[in-house]
C-alpha cells in the first residue's frame, strides 16, 4: 500500500475494534493522496490511547502533555512558519476537554494545522471516566447511571471561533478524503472523528450503535466550515534597533556639591507626573556627575491613588538601592501624604517639603510648606517640587533639570522658564538655601 510511505509497518497498538486504528490508517492514506514528503509532516500527540501512535508513523513525531498538543502544535507551526510543512495534532475527547482554550485559541488565530479529535466519548486510558464530550445518557464504568448533561458540540464552537475547515464524521470505513480536505485547508482545520471505545463504551452501553448515539446526541455529521482562508502569519521584526543606544547616554555638563549620597522620596498622585519627574531628576543629577537610582511605587491600578518614587543621588557608585527612611520627603498631594505618612513618622531628622494645602504629618523632619499645587497645578506640581528641592539644597543647578526636560521634548507641555524663574516676583518662593542632611553612608 502506498500509504506505507507514512507508516512504519509495525501495526497499530490499539484494542480490537478501536476506531483509533482507522484514524491512523485514514491519516496515512490522506497524506499519500496529498503526495506529501513524510518528513514535511509533524505529527503531534499527547496523553491518551491516541498518543501511543507515534512509533507507527514515519513522520516527525512530538508527544507532549495531556490536553496541550494543540498549543504545542501551534508553536511548532508558527515556529516553522512554512506553508509547505504540515502539522497534524491528534487528541482525544479528554485532551480536548482539558485543552479547550488551546483549541478555541488556535482556531481563532488560524494557526496552520489540522486537529483530529478522536472522540470515543470517554477517557479510555484511565478506566473510562466521562469527558465533557460524553453524550447525555451515555454510561461509563465510573458513571453507570449515565451522564446527565450534553457533551460539547466542538465543531460548532471551533467553526464559531473562525476555523478554516471543520467537519464531523462517523469514524468507520474510508474517510481519508475528508482528512485530506482538512489537511489542504490554508489555516486551522479540525475533524472530529466519532468513535465508541470498545473496551469501556461498548461494554457499558451494550447494543448501542455509534451512528445512533451521535444522532441522539444532536451532533450533526457534516461540514461546519469550509473555504475560510484565515491563516496565522508569524510576526517578524527585522528592523528592531538596539535597546542600548547613544540616545541613552547622559553627558556630564554641570557640577554638584554632594559629598555623601542623599535619598529623596517624592510622593504624590497618579497622573501628576511623579514618576517622570523623578526620572528627570535622576537624569539631571547624572548630568551633574552624580550616580542615581529611581524606583517607583504605586497601586496596581496605576491611574488612581498615590504615586511615589524613591531617588538616591550619590557622588559614588550606588550598590544598595533601598532607602528605608529618606533624607528628604516631598509630598505634593493628599494621596501622596496618605501613602507617605508612615515614612514621615519614621524620619528622625531630615527635611519634609509639603504642599501648603496639606496638614502637617507627625515627623521628626524639618517641615517646610510650599505652594506646589498653586504654582504649577496638579499636572506639574511634582516636577515643580523637584525645582524647589534643588533651590533649597543646591546640590546641582536647576538648569540640569531644564536641559533633561528639553532633551526629552517636554518643553512644549509646560512653561519651564516660569517654573525655573525663582527670581520672578510671582514665583519667588523665598526658599532659603540650606545644606541638606544625609543618613546614607
Amino acid at each position, binding site marked *: 500500500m502506498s500509504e506505507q510511505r507514512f507508516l512504519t509497518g509495525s501495526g497499530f497498538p490499539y484494542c480490537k475494534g478501536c476506531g483509533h486504528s482507522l484514524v491512523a490508517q485514514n491519516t496515512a492514506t490522506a497524506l499519500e493522496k496529498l503526495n506529501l514528503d513524510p518528513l514535511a509532516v509533524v505529527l503531534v500527540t499527547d496523553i491518551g490511547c491516541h498518543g501511543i501512535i507515534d512509533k507507527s508513523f514515519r513522520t516527525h513525531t512530538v508527544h507532549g502533555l495531556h490536553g496541550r498538543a494543540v498549543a504545542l502544535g501551534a508553536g511548532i507551526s508558527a515556529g516553522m512558519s512554512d506553508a509547505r510543512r504540515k502539522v497534524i495534532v491528534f487528541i482525544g475527547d479528554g485532551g480536548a476537554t482539558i485543552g479547550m482554550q488551546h483549541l478555541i485559541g488556535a482556531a481563532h488565530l488560524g494557526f496552520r494545522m489540522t486537529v483530529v479529535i478522536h472522540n470515543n466519548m470517554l477517557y479510555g486510558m484511565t478506566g473510562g471516566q466521562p469527558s465533557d464530550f460524553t453524550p447525555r445518557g451515555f454510561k461509563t464504568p465510573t458513571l453507570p447511571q449515565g451522564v446527565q448533561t450534553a457533551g460539547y458540540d466542538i465543531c460548532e464552537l471551533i467553526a464559531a471561533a473562525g476555523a478554516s475547515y471543520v467537519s464531523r464524521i462517523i469514524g468507520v470505513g474510508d474517510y481519508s478524503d475528508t482528512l485530506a480536505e482538512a489537511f489542504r485547508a490554508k489555516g486551522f482545520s479540525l475533524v472530529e472523528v466519532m468513535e465508541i471505545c470498545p473496551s469501556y463504551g461498548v461494554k457499558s452501553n451494550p447494543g448501542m450503535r455509534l451512528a445512533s448515539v451521535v444522532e441522539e446526541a444532536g451532533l450533526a455529521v457534516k461540514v461546519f466550515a469550509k473555504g475560510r482562508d484565515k491563516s496565522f502569519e508569524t510576526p517578524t521584526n527585522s528592523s528592531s534597533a538596539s535597546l542600548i543606544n547613544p540616545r541613552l547616554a*547622559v553627558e556630564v555638563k554641570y557640577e554638584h556639591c554632594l559629598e555623601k549620597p542623599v535619598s529623596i522620596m517624592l510622593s504624590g498622585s497618579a497622573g501628576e507626573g511623579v514618576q517622570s519627574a523623578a526620572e528627570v531628576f535622576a537624569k539631571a543629577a547624572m548630568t551633574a556627575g552624580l550616580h542615581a537610582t529611581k524606583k517607583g511605587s504605586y497601586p496596581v491600578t496605576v491611574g488612581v491613588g498615590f504615586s511615589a518614587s524613591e531617588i538616591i543621588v550619590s557622588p559614588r557608585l550606588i550598590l544598595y538601592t533601598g532607602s528605608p527612611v529618606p533624607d528628604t520627603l516631598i509630598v505634593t498631594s493628599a494621596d501622596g501624604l496618605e501613602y507617605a505618612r508612615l515614612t514621615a513618622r519614621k524620619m528622625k531628622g531630615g527635611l519634609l517639603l509639603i504642599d501648603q494645602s496639606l496638614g502637617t504629618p507627625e515627623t521628626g523632619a524639618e517641615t517646610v510648606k510650599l505652594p506646589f499645587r498653586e504654582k504649577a497645578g496638579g499636572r506639574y506640581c511634582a516636577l515643580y517640587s523637584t525645582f524647589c528641592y534643588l533651590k533649597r539644597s543646591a546640590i546641582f543647578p536647576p538648569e540640569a533639570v531644564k536641559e533633561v526636560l528639553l532633551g526629552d521634548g517636554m518643553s512644549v507641555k509646560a512653561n519651564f522658564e516660569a517654573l525655573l524663574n525663582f527670581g520672578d516676583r510671582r514665583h519667588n518662593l523665598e526658599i532659603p538655601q540650606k545644606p541638606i542632611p544625609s543618613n546614607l553612608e
Partner: protein
Amino acid sequence: MALVDGSRLITEACVRAGADVFIGYPITPANLLYLYATRRYPTMLAAPDEITTLQWMSGFSAAGKLPVTATSFPGYSLMAESINMAFMMELPMVVILVQRLGPATGTATCGAQGDLSVVQGTLSGGFSLPTLCISSMQDCWDLSAAAVATSVRLRTPVILLTSKEMVMTLLSFDTSRLKEIKPVEKSRHSGEGPYFPYRAGEDLVPAFLPVNQSKFQVRLTASTHDSRGILQNTTQEAVDNTRRLQAKLDKNLESYCFYELDEEEGAETVIVSYDVTAQAAREAIQRLRGEGKKISLLVSKTLLPVPRIYLQIAARYRRVVIAEENLTGQWRTLLFGAAGREGLSGINGIAKTIAPDEIVKEVLGLE
C-alpha cells in the same frame, strides 16, 4: 553613563546572544521585559496564558528557534508541567523568573527572593534546571547571554532568576563597560547515518535537529523514552536516558558555574548572598572593611545544580552569614541542609529589601 533598568539590559543581551522569539503573558513585575520584547525580539507573541506560553515556546524550540519568556511565581507555577516537558524533550529555552512577594498572588509590586525552592522543586524526581541568578546590572548583561548559550549548548530549559528591584529600578550605569556578546552557535546534527534525537556523545548532550528539515526523522517526547525518542516503560536504555538528563548538567557544570568571590586574607567570616541582596552585601563588605574588619564575600550566581565549590569555599570560614530576602533561608538550606553547620547564620526578611546595616550588624554581633 545612562539611566537604565535591568530589564533593558536583559532583553538586549538575550537577543544579541541569539534568542529570536519572546512569548509571554503579562505579569508584574516582569512587565518591562514584556514591553522591551515587543520592541526588540525578531518575533514576539502574546500568549493567552502561561501554559500556552510554555507550549508555544516548546513548539518554537522544536522548530529550531530559541525562545524566551518572563514571568513571576503565579505564571511560573502554571508553566511547571510544561517546563518538565521541555526538560524531558531537551528543548533549549530561557525562562526569566522575576520574584515577587508570595505566597499565591501575594503583593505583585513587592520584591522577594522566595522562589528558589520552587525552582529547585520544579522537576519531578529532583532533577535540576540550570538556574542563573542576577545580582547586579552587569549580571543582567553577562548572565542573560550565558543563560541563552547554556540552554543551547546543553539542550535544556534554563531559569534566569531575578527579582522586582533588579529589573525595575532605574540605575545610572556605564553601558560602555558592556562586553560584546557573540550569538550562540546553534550546532546541528550532521552526517549521513540515522539520527538518534537522544543519543549523546561524551558531553552527554545529544546533537539537536529541528522538525523543519526533511533529512532525518525527529522524535521528541515528554515520556520516558529510548535514544530514538520512542516511548518506553522502564527499559534499561530508557532509564539510562533519564539518568543522563541530570548527568549532562552535572558533567558540564563548570561551563555555566558563575560566582563572585572576594576573599580577604585572615577573614573568619564569609557573607554569602545572591540576587538583589548581593548588592546590600557588597555595600556591607565596604563598610565593614572601612571599619577595619576582615571579611569575605561570596555572591552565588549559578544556584542550580548547586556547585560544590560553594561548600568548599564556606569550609574555609568559621562563620558563614547568608543574606536572602525570604523567611526560611532557602539558599542556606540548599547549601547546608536542615542540620546547618556550626557558625552558620542567616539574615532573612520579607516585604522589604535587606539593608546593608542589617548585614553589618549581624557580622559585628557574631564577634
